[in-house]
């Protein structure tokens, strides 16, 4: 099946475009300003969060509200291991460890909640941000004695390239999983979990593993972002906004295809960057309203419009083509 795809023209076209895009992104800092690089860095970060979220929640149907928690864990891992007080480890190691820490947390949460009904999972992940934040505030106040951490600053370009690297790895991982057995198992769980279990799928293990994998890149992204923020405290690091945005972006973009969350993330990340300073409350209000409207009226997201657009386009082209031919006939 897939061998025919590999050599098809369409695949080569898409691969070529992606390569071009990658070259563009890789050379971006060379011809743009520092603030543009920062904006793109944040857009890339949101794409990572969104694609990771969609990988699990989009295919299994279990709504996770934990991205902010995993992201925050990544941020604080960097804060603790890459702080100005003691640079324990080099940056690459910190990022990997942040990913692992988020992975472990996700496994724990998954093992406790994913063998039960989806509502427990939703409740647990929703409150996770609050829980960890409270724990850290307590720890900083009582044990460390000082609130907040200072992270070693890293150049904007480095942050950008690391984020780009994490994004590439994320997209590759999600793409490969989608086409693998694990991806098939996840889809079957989303289709009908009971039937999947009766066809031999170890549903709990699949869910827990996939949930864990989805957390890795969120943590890694958090770790590198911390070096951009420089100062972090529990309230900054653990913000439910970072759970909301991936959901909004994935739902808006549509989870039927891999590029859906990417497009959704790009649109909203850019909009958020543009509006955040002007009217913070208004745009957040608008985002909330948009999420509700999209779920109600366009549950498949933008991606679900593509087949309709393709049909319309094909119809227009054939009309145009037919019209041209008719003229030709008329003139002879």
């Amino acid at each position: 099946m897939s061998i025919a795809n590999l050599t098809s023209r369409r695949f080569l076209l898409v691969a070529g475009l992606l390569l071009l895009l990658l070259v563009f992104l890789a050379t971006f800092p060379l011809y743009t300003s520092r603030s543009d690089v920062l904006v793109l860095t944040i857009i890339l970060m949101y794409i990572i969060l969104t694609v990771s979220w969609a990988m699990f929640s989009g295919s299994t149907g279990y709504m996770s509200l934990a991205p902010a928690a995993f992201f925050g864990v990544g941020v604080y891992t960097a804060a603790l291991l890459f702080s100005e007080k003691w640079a324990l480890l080099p940056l690459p190691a910190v990022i990997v460890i942040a990913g692992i820490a988020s992975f472990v947390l996700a496994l724990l949460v998954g093992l406790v909640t994913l063998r039960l009904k989806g509502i427990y999972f939703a409740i647990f992940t929703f409150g996770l941000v609050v829980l960890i934040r409270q724990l850290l505030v307590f720890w900083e106040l009582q044990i460390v004695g000082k609130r907040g951490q200072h992270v070693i600053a890293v150049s904007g370009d480095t942050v950008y390239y690391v984020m780009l690297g994490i994004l590439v790895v994320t997209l590759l991982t999600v793409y490969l999983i989608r086409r693998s057995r694990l991806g098939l198992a996840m889809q079957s769980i989303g289709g009908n979990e009971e039937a999947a279990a009766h066809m031999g799928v170890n549903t709990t293990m699949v869910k827990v593993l996939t949930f864990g994998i989805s957390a890795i890149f969120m943590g890694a992204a958090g770790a590198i972002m911390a070096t951009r923020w420089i100062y972090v405290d529990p309230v900054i690091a653990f913000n439910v906004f970072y759970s909301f945005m991936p959901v909004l972006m994935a739902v808006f973009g549509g989870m039927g295809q891999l590029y859906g969350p990417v497009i959704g993330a790009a649109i909203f990340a850019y909009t958020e960057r543009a509006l955040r300073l002007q009217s913070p409350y208004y745009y957040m209000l608008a985002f909330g309203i948009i999420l509700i409207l999209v779920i109600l009226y366009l549950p498949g997201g933008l991606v679900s419009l593509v087949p309709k657009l393709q049909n319309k386009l094909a119809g227009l082209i054939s009309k145009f083509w037919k019209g041209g031919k008719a003229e030709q006939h008329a003139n002879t």
Partner: protein
Amino acid sequence: MNPTIVWIVISGLMNGGIYALIAMGLSLQYGVARVINLSHGEFIMFAAFLTWTLYTGFGINPLLSAAISGPLLFGLGFLIHRTIFTSLRNRSPSPAAFEGNSLLVAFGLYFVIQNVALLIWGGQPRAYYYLFHGVELFGVTFVVNNLIALVISVGLGAAFFVFVARSRLGRAIRAAAQDPVTAGLMGVNINFVLPLCFGLGALMAGVAGLLASMCYPISISMGMNYTVIALIVVALGGLGSIPGSFIGGFILGLVGSVVAHWQPALSMVAYYAIFMFLLLVRPAGILGKA
């Protein structure tokens, strides 16, 4: 009697009363309308700020202002369900899909309500003083407004419990909670009962918010904590069981009080520990069906 114990028990009951109220409200919304209302705490916050405005801006006694904020919040909840969630229910291909989608819609509502509140009141915390004098009880001094909050929450909770257990409408509610489709076939007007329950849940959030504004300073971000606590209590009490939420609220309130006496900053951690223990041992909850 040991004053420490008196303090722990009474303040535990005070918090427990509020927790029981908001948990029963959430339980109604989930048990009947099948909506996991993540924006529940925002209704609480909204009512709290409304009460503050009515008192500091218009001089209306907080307890009396319930006559305004109560129906307002009920109406808001009823409307929101009648428009948004009913529409979602009709469009969702399956109950499981509806649960997932309504969760996300409620998440969106969380942001909508919170930012509307920010636009109205701004980001500063507020407080007011009403019935702020002390009274002695069993050798310990308590603030009157706290005690009134306790009485009201327990009273309202008990009254509501009786209402659901005895009244005709209560029976319709219980039927709809069991099986909305069959209840509809048996003559229960589902398109009325479901939004009604959602509205009642919002009403209880409203009362809780009013009481909270009397006893504590309020901030726009206060809602999420309450939502998480309500969710935990609902799970503890058995996902949709009104009596379970009532009892569970008081249990959590007492636990919180004990923990707060030792280390106030760790109350949420304690609640989560209980939650995790519950999930591992008996997910159905205290009064839930296994």
